[in-house]
């Protein structure tokens, strides 16, 4: 998925010179072809995230389409106020592409984890949230939104689903239809583990790559009696999104995500999955109360 980003950018630049890529001193080698072919449209801006987002806002004011890229905690948490004020409050268009997600950098420890990124950005009104599950999905979603004139966050992941789906921005995709009334929303790369976790279970599975704006209609059209939200992020995100159902007596819901605590272990992201019960077996236990 990460390798798709420079490739998509290179292609867009062949017909849209408004794009201005700002790298936070990461991904420079991956973008070498962009540097070579479109040197005026890409800058390795350095390790100064707050100013970088501000600079991106200035570029947006001047008519450019900025794309800011660095590791999730530095982009979202360190520069949060700039995202909130310079983009959200000023209603400026920009693209913020992170890597690392919640714990892709498992071995580097907590400073490089960002399980709160999506929740934080959900609290900036108007900030779009996109969580692709594959390289193709990123390519499709980025192309459809990069020039939207709204701030959009794309969360790249080291992990990808095997299933490539024709996703559309703002729409959920029905992957499997069951009869039990139990509907599971799987967000981005969590789909792979959810499909394994639900093997043999009579459930409906809906795939979500756009968290904001969230497509409630597709979910409700399937008439669920219970909705589970599976996301590789702090669980509060799911409760925030599914809170729309709290006024309904006909739907209950739960969230399978990361409990709100620092992840104080190293290892691999598979190790952390198991530690947090976010591997397929752990998700199965949490969804169906088995084992």
């Amino acid at each position, binding site marked *: 998925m990460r390798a798709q980003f420079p490739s998509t950018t290179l292609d867009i630049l062949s017909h849209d010179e408004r794009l201005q890529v700002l790298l936070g001193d990461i991904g420079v080698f991956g973008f070498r072809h962009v540097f070579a072919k479109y040197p005026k449209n890409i800058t390795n801006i*350095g390790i100064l995230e707050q100013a970088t987002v501000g600079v991106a806002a*200035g*570029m947006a004011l001047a008519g450019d389409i900025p794309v800011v890229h660095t590791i999730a905690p530095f982009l979202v948490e360190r520069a949060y106020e700039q995202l909130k004020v*310079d983009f959200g*409050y000023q209603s400026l268009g920009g693209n913020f592409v992170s890597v690392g997600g919640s714990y892709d950098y498992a071995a580097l420890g907590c400073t490089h984890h960002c399980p709160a990124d999506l929740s934080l950005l959900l609290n900036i009104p108007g900030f779009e949230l996109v969580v692709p599950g594959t390289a193709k999905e990123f390519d499709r979603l980025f192309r459809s939104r990069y020039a939207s004139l709204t701030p959009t966050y794309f969360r790249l992941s080291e992990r990808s689903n095997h299933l490539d789906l024709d996703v559309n921005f703002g729409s959920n995709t029905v992957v499997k239809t069951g009869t039990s009334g139990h509907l599971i929303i799987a967000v981005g790369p969590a789909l792979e583990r959810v499909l394994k976790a639900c093997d043999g279970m009579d459930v409906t599975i809906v795939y979500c790559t756009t968290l904001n704006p969230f497509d409630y209609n597709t979910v409700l059209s399937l008439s669920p009696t219970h909705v589970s939200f599976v996301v590789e992020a702090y669980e509060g995100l799911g409760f925030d999104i599914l809170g729309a159902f709290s006024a309904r007596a006909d739907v209950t819901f739960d969230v399978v995500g990361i409990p709100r605590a620092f992840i104080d272990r190293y290892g691999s992201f598979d190790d952390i999955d198991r530690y947090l019960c976010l591997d397929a077996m752990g998700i199965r236990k949490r969804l169906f109360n088995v084992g």
Partner: protein
Amino acid sequence: MSEINLSPLRARILELSMQAREGHVPSAFSILDIIFVFYNKVSKRTNSDLDLDDLFLLSKGHGCLALYVVLEHFELIEKAALDGFGSFNSDFGGHPDRTKSPHITASTGSLGHGLPIAVGLAMSRLRRGVNGSVCCLIGDGEANEGAVWEAALLASQHNLNNLTCLIDNNQSGERAVHISAKLSKMFTAFDWEVLEIDGHDHCHLETAIFETGTVGGPRAIICNTVKGKGVRSMERAPEWHHRSPNPVEYSEFLKELSN
């Protein structure tokens, strides 16, 4: 440029603040001359200067009453619109909002945001060949913020000779971090060209702001000012930082300004 008496504009600031019970009056007073000189020059441009497109960005957002009254003076915003300053439906509040007025370059108020935005504007304009400068006004206290120095680093890295940072050095932040006396050295260390002037002298301001820099990079103009300039009891008086005059005080201040 001959000195212009800005007492009527100071009076207008006091009036708006009194009516709204809102506003950072002393901060507005310290930057009024700077902003007036900028817009006065820009408003007098003739056809031969039409390719020049200087932009002003107020990073020290809480001083916005100065910006508003200058925009009103040059008829860029209407008196009736500004009369509602700070009220529920007003386009003009205690910090400037670009979504409410086309004459506000950026929505500021949280210190440290404006200079990075100005750097981004300057980078784009340089690349696109847009003539004219981006002039960003920050405060000396604001220069405590790390983002200011991140932006300063970028500005010199990218040789932004179309960027001017005006620093309202009214020394109000000195009770916390002693930075005022260091500003010149700090900007110089970041490879900026640095000028230091009287921030209330219109001739010096016009010359400094609009003369071309000599080193091919960004310029910092340290404007030494008096916080609360124009009303003696406000000058350098911390208690007036975010306090609006009551009607009695307002009348007294008007008399002082008219003398």
